[in-house]
């Protein structure tokens, strides 16, 4: 096989060599300045640009139709609605600028292609024009900045709600572990030197606040309509807790605790009935069926979004949003840290 590649490559080289020899011989007969673009070159390139801009803009808009529904479905969290709304207005602005500027650029590129009898206009500067395109972008940006910061401050508001459910997400290569604060709604201390097989999160076993904490693997459950106060820790390298459907993300940094709060608004069951989700799941299941795999049902996920090692692409955890009743029932079945450890030792 390798031999074939080499052979093909050699033949290609020989063919190109001959081609150039021909070009060279024919060139020696001419003395014209081949590098100078002729009027027909200019016309052709100008037209190409004009065609290009129409095709390009049409194609980019067509992609919204073609791929738009594959983008994330409506936000499943309260603050996410604000993010989506802001995104919508920003998208209007940037699509407009993108289309208009590219169009004008390539239109001029065609309109003013070089001709023998054309003379360019000596137009070196114009204070009014330059003022115009300094002030207009500045005004638009002022709006973008003001609204962006307003929402940012609301989302990142640090004032604590005592009633919020506290969950800690602990990341390590290459999985997530969750810890619920338990009855006292407070986390016990942690100490990374105490990590061992039975204490994978490195809880401080001398701190009584740890005893009622609940450690969960594989999936977390959260109640709809309740604020969840997440805190993040990491055991080894930087990871990032990314909840795409909730428009939430926060890095997990070894040696420090980071936080992000959000209120889920749509249960998993409700989201499965969302039109856009149904459409995507249909496609995914068709692909899976063709490969002979089991059908897949939509679930919220938490994925790692900061390069963390070889299995970075598979560091995920299921998130289930359900009614408060179901959530409480599920939580009641989980074992507190102390009971779990004691049970293991026996």
């Amino acid at each position, binding site marked *: 096989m390798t031999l074939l590649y080499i052979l093909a490559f050699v033949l290609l080289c020989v063919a190109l060599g001959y081609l150039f020899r021909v070009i060279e011989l024919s060139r020696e007969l001419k003395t014209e*300045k081949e590098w100078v673009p002729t009027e027909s070159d200019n016309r052709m390139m100008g037209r190409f640009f004009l065609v290009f801009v129409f095709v390009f803009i049409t194609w980019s808009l067509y992609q919204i139709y073609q791929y738009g529904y594959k983008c*994330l479905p409506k936000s499943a969290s309260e603050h996410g609605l604000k*993010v989506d709304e802001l995104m919508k207005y920003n998208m209007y602005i940037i699509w407009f600028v993108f289309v208009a500027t590219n169009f004008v650029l390539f239109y001029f590129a065609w309109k003013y292609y070089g001709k023998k009898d054309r003379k360019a*206009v000596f137009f070196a500067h114009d204070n009014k*024009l330059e003022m115009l395109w*300094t002030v207009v972008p500045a005004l638009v940006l002022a709006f973008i900045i003001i609204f*962006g910061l307003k929402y940012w401050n609301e989302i990142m508001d640090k004032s604590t709600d005592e009633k919020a459910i506290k969950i800690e997400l602990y990341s390590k290569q290459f999985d997530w572990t969750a810890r619920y604060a338990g009855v006292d709604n407070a986390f016990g201390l942690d100490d990374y030197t105490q990590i061992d097989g039975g204490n994978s999160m490195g809880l401080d076993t001398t701190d009584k606040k740890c005893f009622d904490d609940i450690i969960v693997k594989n999936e977390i459950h959260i109640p709809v309509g309740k604020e969840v106060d997440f805190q*993040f820790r990491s055991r080894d390298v930087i990871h990032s807790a990314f909840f795409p459907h909730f428009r939430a993300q926060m890095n997990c940094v070894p040696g420090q605790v980071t936080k992000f709060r959000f209120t889920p608004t749509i249960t998993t069951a409700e989201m499965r009935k969302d039109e856009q989700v149904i459409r995507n799941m249909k496609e995914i299941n068709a*692909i899976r069926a063709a490969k002979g795999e089991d059908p897949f049902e939509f679930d919220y996920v938490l994925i790692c979004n900061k390069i963390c090692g070889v299995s970075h692409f598979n560091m995920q955890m299921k998130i289930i949003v359900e009614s408060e009743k179901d959530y409480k029932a599920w939580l009641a079945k989980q074992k507190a840290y102390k009971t779990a450890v004691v049970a293991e030792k026996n």
Partner: protein
Amino acid sequence: MGNSHGHTVAVGHEHELHHAHAHDDHHEESFVSKYIFSMDHKTISRQFLITAVIMAVVAMMMSIIFRMQLAWPGEKFAFINMMLGDKWGKDGILDPNMYLALVTIHGTIMVFFVLTGGLSGTFSNLLIPYQIGARDMASGFLNMLSYWFFFLSSCIMIGSLFIEDGPASGGWTIYPPLSALPEAIPGSKLGMTLWLISMSLFIVSSLLGGLNYIVTIINLRTKGMKMTRMPLTIWAFLITAILGVLSFPVLLSCALLLIFDRSMGTSFYLSDIYIGGRPLDQVGGSPILFEHLFWFLGHPEVYIVLLPALGITSEIIATNSRKPIFGYRAMIGSMLAIGFLSFIVWGHHMYMTGMNPFLGSVFVFTTLLIAIPSAVKAFNYITTLWKGNIQYTPAMLFSVGLVSSFVTGGVTGIILADSTLDITVHDTYFVVAHFHIVMGLSAIFGMFAGVYHWFPKMFRRMMNKKLGYLHFWITFIGAYGVFFPMHFLGMSGVPRRYYTNSNFPLFDNLGDINELVTVFAIIAALGQIVFLINFFYSMFKGQTAPQNPWNSNTLEWTTPAAQHIHGNWPGALPEVHRWPYDYSKPGAERDFIPQTVPLGPDEHDGGGH
């Protein structure tokens, strides 16, 4: 004052060189001193260019390999096995560790070796002495060292591909602890050490080059070459060099602390880590410190990459529109503004690190401000085309392409700069699309434009126009085909640096976008063969270049076409009488007036008439 100063120095320099020349007449330069350890800025420029072309080919091949994996995960490709061998491409399937290594080295080579070393190294070296009317760089020796450090660092970077554990693989941003701990990823063993050594040498090269560029521009301008008569290329190179000199030392210290953490047990970046079955001793450091230091270079770096490209295209667009660049002073002002702002925006890479949200707000504000000078530049380019007489040389095509990609990639920056919106698109393919279009494409288009435009000054021959056209269209269409659909992947929540997107079913139906992207990537890569053929063929067999093939005003076109003289001009240095953009000036005989032509009796300099 500044001007007369520049003049005296230039004259002094000239005397020195005359002595040198008298000396040279007796001893022919040896092959080694002429082509290898040369101190001539033109030779050094060619050395940078050819090294960068080779590095670019390597980095591009890497991208094709990992794009094949992303489009058809699990598929067996003889090509991958051929390129990577049985260890990393067993049965033609890319190894996941190698995937991360390829992504890392692709980014490192493209950002630093091609678009910093290659772009600045080539064109700053070639054009600074030529366009300001100097015999050579202020220090030819430091300039030579700059190239050889670059060469050495390139060799080490390429060499790291062949070691047992594979090259560095923590992403080109090499965030610790991943990059600090050999237990975390195989690439953080010897590969990371070599990466750090290579980058340290690269920084030395960059600093030697940058200091030289600054000193040369400030001191060696010829008579009449006021700062406000400098071509925009020179302004761009000057600002770029200043950014580099101010920010690369920070990267060096950042790398140095990482070296300490890796091999001397310090804990600048490490704290509370349990890995490889044991808790580490290091306590009290913070990986966030690394991120601050890294991005304090990292963000100016974006403009170190971009500004030379913008400078090059300013020159090419004016020349080929046969019009003065619109708003010369505004262009300088916006470059200065971009340069200044680039130092106070680094935090926008870190909104999601847990950084204080208030600090985040400050960075939102400063970052979005950069959009204003950028918009001014884009509109000024477009106005330069307006009512021009556009000559479509391949260089001009790439310059128009740059303006397009600068706008298309720039607008998505508004989304990413906005911390609220960054929450959903941070570290997704949206980011990949954004920076490849605005920085990657714009800079590489600027580089191609520069190569096509100044090839005659480098190699005394012309590149083939038709092949240039073909190359442009394949590249331009291919590049948008690769990066535009990526925005949709990002909006679907697909994170970057995933070995495969089909390991869990959520992203399964995005496979068609990934395939489309890869097909375009392969087409665009094949298109580069056209360039390589044109480049190397024209170097030896292209049409002989005349003195001023593009009817351009700047000083480099007043040097003799037939031979390369060490010292650039055979006689006295040229004297400059006007700004460089007198194209199609009313009342002039021809549509260009070189800078060496004295002003007429009623003529005003610099755009007035």
